[in-house]
Structure formats: C-alpha cells, structure tokens
C-alpha cells in the first residue's frame, strides 16, 4: 500500500535532476550490496566446503561419526546430533514457559505492568552471550549438577537418556542456557501476534459468559497459533546457531551423545573451539562444511518462521 503510494510520488515529485538520479542510484547500490553480501556468504561457504564434500561425499560427511585431524578423517554426525539435541532440550523447557508468560503479558497483565515486564524480558536478549556463558560455567553449571542433575541421575539413571554422572558441563547445561536465551524471542513475538488478534473476538467470547482463560483458549490462541509456531521456530533458529554460551558449557565432547549428561559439541561450538587450530586444507574445509550445514538449516527455519509470523500479522 505504502509502496504503491511511494511509486506515485516518485513520478509526481520533482525527481528529474542529475543529482536526484545520482542519489537514487547510490542508495540502490547500497541496498543491492546487502543482497550481494548474503549471496557472497553462501557462495563462499559452498566453495570452501567443496574439498570436504568431495573427499567424503555429502552423505558420508553428514553421517560420519569420526572427527580425527591426525588421520584427516572428518564426519559431522556427532555435532549435528549435539546441535539438535541441545536445541531440543531448550525448546522443551522454554516453549511452555514462554507461551504462558506471553499469554500473561498479552491478556492478563494490566498495561502499566505488561510494558515494563516486556521491557525487562527483552533486556535478557541484549546480554552478550559470552557473559551468559561465564555465568553458566561458574554459577548455573554447578547448581544444575547438584540439584536437577543429581536428582535425575539417581531417579532415572537406568534409562540411557539419563545415564552417566552429571557434571557442571554437558548437553543438559547447554540446553538450559539455550532455553534461557530463547525465552525473550518466543515471548516477545508470541505476545505481538496475540495482541494483534482483534479485540472483538475476545469480547464475543466474554459476552457468551466465557472465563478469561476460556477466551484465551478458544478465541485468542487459535487465531494466533501459526504466528506462535513461527515464534518458536525463530527461537529454535537462534538456539541452533548460538555459539559462545554453548561453547563454554557443553563440555567439548567428540562422541555422538546419547545421555543428556554427555559432554558434547554443537556445530557452532565445534567451529569456535577448533577453527584456529585447524590445518589449512581438508581440516578447515571440513569445518566450513559444518558451517554450511548450519547455514542451510537456519536459513530454511527463518524463512518458515517469517512466513508463519507474517501470515498471522496480516
């Protein structure tokens, strides 16, 4: 709508001078530069990962379970599993809490409480991830080991998922840290799509004698559902690519993890910890190939999420 309005103006406005053309083309060049930059990032990762994909094959690289720079054999599977595993823990923990909090902020909380609370929760997203990681190493990790870790291990230690001895680092600590980090993303977007549901829908339910919760459950949530799924997917995208905080608490393990207490690595943490030591050649190429896998996953998730959120918003 506005775009169409601007197009009309473009012809109507005094736009004929040379300086006008120069300015217009300059801004266009910068805009296109952003597009070129994105293409260049993808292109560069594809080119520099070719050596690894040619050496092991795409399937061979993705499913390979050995990462050994000495023998020059590289397989991505332990890190792909570590990435999906830690993000899954984060989603399981964060989604219900974030959605209930968003419901409170959008539906129950009075505006003078909702505004500052939203503000404070969004501040959490602004904390540098290296600072959260530092807190994770010295505070959260030891606390989790002595409480949740010890309890789960003694109660369900026989199940492979909870096997092993919990330490202050590992997949479960990374999962909790990631859950904390994606809370603001899920909450603020869910709250926005819920606020966008027309007031008349709520009033219709309330007029029928429904309680506030019934109104939320039957009028607001169905209308906001696809946007909220989009919010969760955006959270997932952030969790998959989060690097520093995870690197600092996940334990740098090299095997395919089965237990939540396992020391593991995500794709991002593997790149962060070993990129500088890698020999130029097949080793670096394999790390870039890991990066390419992560890039493809996050771009696809982002596109899906934006389609879902945009669908609800309009």
């Amino acid at each position: 709508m506005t775009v169409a309005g601007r197009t009309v103006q473009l012809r109507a406005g005094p736009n004929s001078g040379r300086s006008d053309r120069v300015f217009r083309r300059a801004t266009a060049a910068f805009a296109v530069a952003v597009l070129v930059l994105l293409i260049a990032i993808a292109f560069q990762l594809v080119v520099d990962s070719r050596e690894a994909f040619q050496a092991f094959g795409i399937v061979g690289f993705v499913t390979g379970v050995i990462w050994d720079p000495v023998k020059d054999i590289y397989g991505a599977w332990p890190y792909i599993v570590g990435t999906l595993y830690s993000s899954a823990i984060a989603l399981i923990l964060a989604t219900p809490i974030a959605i209930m909090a968003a419901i409170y902020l959008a539906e129950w909380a009075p505006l003078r409480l909702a505004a500052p609370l939203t503000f404070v929760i969004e501040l959490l997203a602004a904390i540098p991830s290296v600072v959260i990681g530092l807190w994770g190493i010295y505070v959260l990790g030891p606390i989790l080991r002595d409480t949740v870790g010890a309890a789960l291990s003694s109660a369900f230690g026989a199940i492979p998922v909870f096997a092993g001895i919990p330490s202050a680092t590992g997949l479960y600590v990374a999962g909790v840290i990631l859950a904390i980090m994606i809370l603001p993303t899920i909450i603020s977007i869910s709250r926005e799509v819920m606020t966008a549901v027309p007031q008349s829908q709520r009033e219709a339910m309330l007029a029928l004698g429904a309680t506030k919760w019934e109104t939320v459950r039957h009028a607001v949530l169905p209308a906001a559902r696809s946007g909220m799924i989009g919010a969760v997917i955006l959270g997932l995208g952030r969790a998959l690519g989060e690097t520093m905080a995870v690197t600092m608490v996940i334990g740098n393990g090299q095997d395919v993890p089965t237990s939540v207490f396992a020391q593991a690595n995500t794709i991002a943490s593997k790149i962060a910890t070993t990129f500088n030591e890698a020999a130029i050649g097949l080793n670096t190429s394999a790390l870039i190939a890991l990066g390419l896998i992560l890039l493809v996953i996050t771009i696809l998730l982002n596109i899906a999420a934006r389609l879902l959120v945009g669908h609800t918003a309009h």
Partner: protein
Amino acid sequence: MSGSLTPAVDRRATLTSGLGGRRTAVDRLMRGLAVACTAICIVPLVAILLYVTVQGIKGLSVDLLTKPPTTLGEGGGAVNSILGTIQMVGLASLLAIPLGVLAGVYLSEYASGRVARTVRFAGDVMVGIPSILIGVFVFTILVLPFGQYNAFAGAVSLAVIMIPVIMRTTEEILVLVPDALREASYALGIRRYRTILTIVIRTGLAGILTGVMLAVARAAGETAPLIMTALGSRLVNVFQWGQPMDAMSLFVYNGSRSPYPAVQEQAWAVAFLLLLFVLVINVIVRARSWGQKMSS
C-alpha cells in the same frame, strides 16, 4: 463451547453450581501458572545481573583500565581488550552506518514492490545467520588470502552483523514519516533527494539512532566472529589494522578458560564493564522509544 448457547439465566445458575466452580477454578489456576511462568523468565536476568555485578566490581581497578595482561594475571589489566573493542566497533560503525542507513532509505523511499521485498528478505535472512558463520565468511576473504589474523577482518565481520539491523530499523522508521511532510517539501520546489536528506531523514533521526545504537551494542558483545578474524592479542594494538587485536568479549572468553584466579577475576570485571555498556545503551534507547509510544 456448546454451553455458550444456553440462555443467560442458566449460565448464571451454572456459574454457582459445581461446573461453574470448576470453570472459575481452572481460570484461576491458569492465571496463577501464567504469573509463575512470567516470574520464572525474570529470575535468570536478575541472577545474571546481580552475580556479574558483584563479581565484576571486585575485580575493578585502575590497573584493569591501564595495563596490558600478564601471564598469570597478577598486576596486569585489560586495556588491550578495551581499546580493541573501541577501535573495532568504531570502524565497524563507520562501515555499517552509512551503508545500512542508505540501504534503508532506498527501501523506504524508492524501492518498488519486488526489489524491496527481495532486499528486505535478504536482510531478514542475514539477521538470522549465526554470527560465527559471518566470522567464517570473513576469514575466507580477509584472513586466508593474507595468511594473517587481523583487526580489519574483525571490524568487517562486526559491520556485516550490524548492516542488516540498521537497514531494517531505518526502513521501519522512515515508512512512518507522514507523506504530507514530503509533499509539503515538494510543493516548495525542493528536490526529492534534498527532501529525503533534510526532511525525511531529519524527522526519523531519533528512530534511526535507536537502530544504530542497538546495533553498536550488539556488535560490542559479539565474540564468535572475532575468534577467527581478529583472533585476540596480549599486546596493546592501536590502529595496526593488519595485526591481531583483542576485544573485551574475547578477553572474557579466554579468561573463562584460564586456571589462574587473578585472570578469572579480570574476566568477571571485563564482563561487568561489557554488560554495563550494553545494558545502558539498551535501557536509554528502549526507555526513550517506550516513552514516545506512551505519549503518542
């Protein structure tokens, strides 16, 4: 909701009966749960702020701000990392602000449907790319060819992270500038580009600054892309863009892996300074735009 079709009188009756009691109980329960979940979300923020502040203030000293680090941490500081962050974030801003703002101007003022959608989409995708992959990309174009980790590559990787953020916020703000302002300017015979520079951008300046400041705060806290570009360094590096350079975020990361208590203490202190900087920017910027929203 079959019950919603029953007459109002019946409804009032059921509210006091067993069924109605259950419904209000469920309502109260869910409300309580929602409040509890909101509280849970606040806990980590408060815990992190308190702990980092308490630990960080212990390590603050004049040495921290004036001396380069020593091997065991004793008697050393973090001036190399503070100067490094200032320089790299500064250069990244010089690169990213004009590029991001002008690209945003194009999207808001000139672009027609298809081009605008494509660039906007590219910007959104770029915001979602994990920052470590930006680091890998910049490594392949600015480190590998020269065989040398360097501060310039670090600044470029921060700029690549800042550009889409600045572009999108600039566009979002300029679209809000009323068309009447543009038309009034045209009516006075002012050319389009001058209208944009002197009227449109002026009007949206506060909003553009908001986006820029948030992008600066984000860049200052970035660590991952610097690992494979600027690398980090124990030496104080001033304007030697071809050499490795430290940053506050790198200092915290490396300090966290150190076995020496003095180094760990410095890491907490630098983490505190970094957190303070990032939060002060966020609070100022967001409180302002929040105040404007309330008053309008």
